[in-house]
């Protein structure tokens, strides 16, 4: 059926092969470096490692898609924690140490980007593992009339991991080629992976010090280094939150009145939790003083802040759940140096907020162990702890 290749075809094939051989070799080296950096390690392996290993590790891809929803959701399923934190990035600083060693914990902060993600979460919890407690951070802008109800959670979980896409590999090679022109940076990045045997790094962002820890919380190593040198408040977001508020940009939109109908989505979720014996602690995460002031006094937002602070506790109390409003940090005895930017508090800020929460009478009925407060107080009081980091 088949005829033999002619000499010229064989010669051509060998010539092409010889040409591509060094190229394939170079690609192989780049592939090795890309995998070694952890950037291309598929989510399932990262989840497995972070769940099973006693070693601390950071997960933070920089070049390819973080597969954020997938990473957080599958980590939650793998850990099957007693306490699950959900909300936006504003709750990502809640640490395992607050509940350790009494309750297992996982912070899936960032998994909720709008109220409709709560619907997706409800379905996922319904069909899979249910935690005993949910700490739910609720952002003010989710309740605006102009806030879109876009859900990304379900789609994000189903999405194929970009680590399996050849274009992602190519993107990482491109980054590595750029790094080759800056050997100091290249060495500094890989230095962590080479020398630090007590940690695992998954991705270039993690190698630079920023990433998700085993408990799902996020470490801002570069911010922490800045704060170590200078404790003056700086809004590190781009553009700064206060500018967004004044310009009505990003998540802050002018004349965005409170939408009572959106409360029904929250109500439905709380009802689901109640029916499934999941205790919920609601939380309004902290703002910097300038941001809170702007929200409070600007005519553009006051129709949003007042009902947000008044109506949310009522919805929670309808189901016997506790809601804590940490919007105004001055009332909590904190100040702006506990803030990374206008909307993100440091882990110390969040730990201190939980200290107040644990002191509440209602919370006494929530947790079976009363040593939580004492334990947390010890960690906060530890001489190694400061305003941006707790020595757990």
């Amino acid at each position: 059926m088949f005829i033999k290749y002619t000499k010229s075809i064989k010669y051509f094939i060998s010539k092409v092969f010889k040409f591509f051989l060094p190229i394939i070799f170079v690609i192989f080296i780049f592939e090795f470096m890309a995998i070694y950096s952890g950037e291309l390690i598929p989510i399932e392996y990262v989840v497995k490692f972070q769940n099973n290993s006693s070693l601390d590790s950071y997960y933070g891809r920089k070049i390819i898609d973080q597969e954020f929803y997938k990473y957080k959701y599958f980590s939650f399923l793998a850990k099957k924690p007693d306490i699950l934190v959900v909300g936006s990035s504003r709750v990502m600083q809640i640490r395992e140490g607050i509940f350790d060693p009494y309750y297992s914990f996982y912070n899936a902060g960032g998994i909720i980007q709008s109220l409709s993600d709560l619907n997706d979460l409800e379905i996922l919890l319904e069909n899979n593992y249910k935690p005993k407690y949910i700490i739910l951070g609720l952002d003010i802008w989710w309740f605006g009339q102009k806030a879109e109800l876009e859900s990304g959670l379900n789609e994000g979980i189903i999405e194929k991991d970009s680590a399996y896409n050849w274009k992602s590999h190519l993107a990482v090679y491109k980054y590595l080629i750029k790094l080759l022109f800056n050997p100091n940076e290249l060495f500094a990045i890989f230095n962590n992976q080479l020398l630090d045997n007590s940690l695992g790094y998954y991705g270039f962002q993690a190698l630079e010090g920023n990433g998700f820890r085993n408990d799902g919380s996020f470490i801002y190593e570069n911010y922490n280094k800045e704060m170590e040198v200078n404790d003056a408040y700086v809004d590190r977001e781009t553009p700064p939150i206060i500018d967004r508020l004044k310009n009505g940009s990003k998540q802050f939109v002018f004349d965005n009145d409170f939408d009572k109908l959106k409360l029904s989505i929250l109500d439905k979720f709380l009802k689901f939790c109640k029916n499934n014996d999941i205790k919920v602690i609601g939380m309004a995460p902290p703002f910097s003083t300038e941001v809170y002031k702007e929200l409070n006094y600007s005519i553009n937002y006051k129709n949003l802040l007042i009902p947000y602070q008044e109506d949310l506790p009522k919805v929670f109390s309808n189901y016997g759940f506790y809601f804590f409003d940490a919007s105004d940090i001055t009332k909590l005895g904190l100040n702006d140096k506990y803030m990374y930017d206008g909307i993100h508090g440091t882990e110390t800020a969040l730990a201190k907020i939980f200290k107040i929460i644990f002191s509440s009478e209602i919370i006494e009925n929530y947790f079976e162990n009363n040593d939580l407060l004492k334990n947390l107080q010890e960690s906060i009081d530890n001489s190694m702890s400061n305003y941006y980091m707790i020595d757990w």
Partner: protein
Amino acid sequence: MLFNSIEFVIFFILVFFIYWKLNRKKQNIFIIICSYIFYGWWDWRFLTLIFISTIVDFFLGKKIYQNDSVKVRRIYLTLSVLINIGILGFFKYFNFFVSSFQEIFYSLGVSVDSLTTLNVILPVGISFYTFQTLSYSIEIYQKKISPTKSFTEFMAFVSFFPQLVAGPIERASALLSQFAKERIFEIHKAIDGCRQILWGLFKKIVIADTLALIVNNVYGGVNEASGVQLLIATIFFAFQIYCDFSGYSDIAIGTSRLLGIKLSRNFAYPYFSRNIAEFWRRWHISLSTWFRDYIFIPLGGNHVSNNYKYLFNILITFILSGLWHGANWTFIFWGFLHGLYYVPYIFSTKSKKAYKSLDEPANLKNIPKIFVTFLFVLIGWVFFRADSIGQGFIIIGKIFSDFSINATENLHLDKFLIIVFLLVVEWFQRKYSNTLDISRFNLIVRRIIYIVLIILIILLGKFNYTPFIYFQF
């Protein structure tokens, strides 16, 4: 399946290794199978259209040849034209004509609600293979060729995958005959084909797809864009469409060469043309010659009683060429505009000088002429890219009136640098049909050039699988 996709790379490597293990007859059958897989990758349902077109022209070609009566021959040719153009017209132009009629009647105050548009998908490359099969019937009618007896050879001719969806539109006399012959693998041609593929990929992935991002952005918001932004976007579009389409042609020609098939040249450095007539001898050559041979010359060409008739023939040819590109008045206007560009040549006594041969490449003294020709081509591209003729005029108006440059305006100098690189390479290679014909250089220089191009593709390329622009035509 896109040429710039990993699927195609794997597909073609497999095709290459199996193809050269087969004898001629089996090679033809194998090409048909591969071509149908290649086309069916988009939408297998439209394979029936290719098959219908193949059967119709195969049998009507025979009928045309077998009859001596001019009248009968003409009937069979008309039948072939009606069926092919009928299919093309239905899928490509039905909605356009219905909505155009509706607009005309509405403007006259007559309601034509009974006329409704259909939800029809445009089959990829339908204009290309329709014109290719039509050329077969027409050439038999013109007694330039005799019909093939082999249905498989004819099927391979119609569906040959490297040029199926975006050309070059081959004549039966050039391509069909190659399927009837034994194919011989010639190493220097294969290597030349590889070079052409590499250059085609560079043009598509690095230049066209990079420029597309800016063009789409600016043309997507014409009202907000400044005159300078629109001018930059239009220049970028000129190079986007050139690199996109000529890049496709290069890859098609290169892959065919690896299979021992020679395809015709489709682009010959069109932006170095010294006048519009030369531009059309260098741009989309296979389509230009198709319209020349089957529309312009049968209308009488330039051998007519007066210059007005000559102009009429030119305008008709260009308007139809515009319509071929798409069912939109912008394409028709673009064709009409290019027809008008011929007026000075038609009414000039020196008109014959306008028709430069491709063997007569431009030199440095010609740069002013090249620049002026490019400006006229650029104006045409505005209408080609615009959503409507009205929008085209708005863009032209802004370009010529709004010269303000915002301090923060991105002038995309890096993109211009890529274009300059392209033009410099093309200028030095303008005597060669394959831009990357570097066989005269020594091995080390050649290897360095290949490696540099591969690195540039990896570093600067956009791997977002942007379909080739001409697929929609």
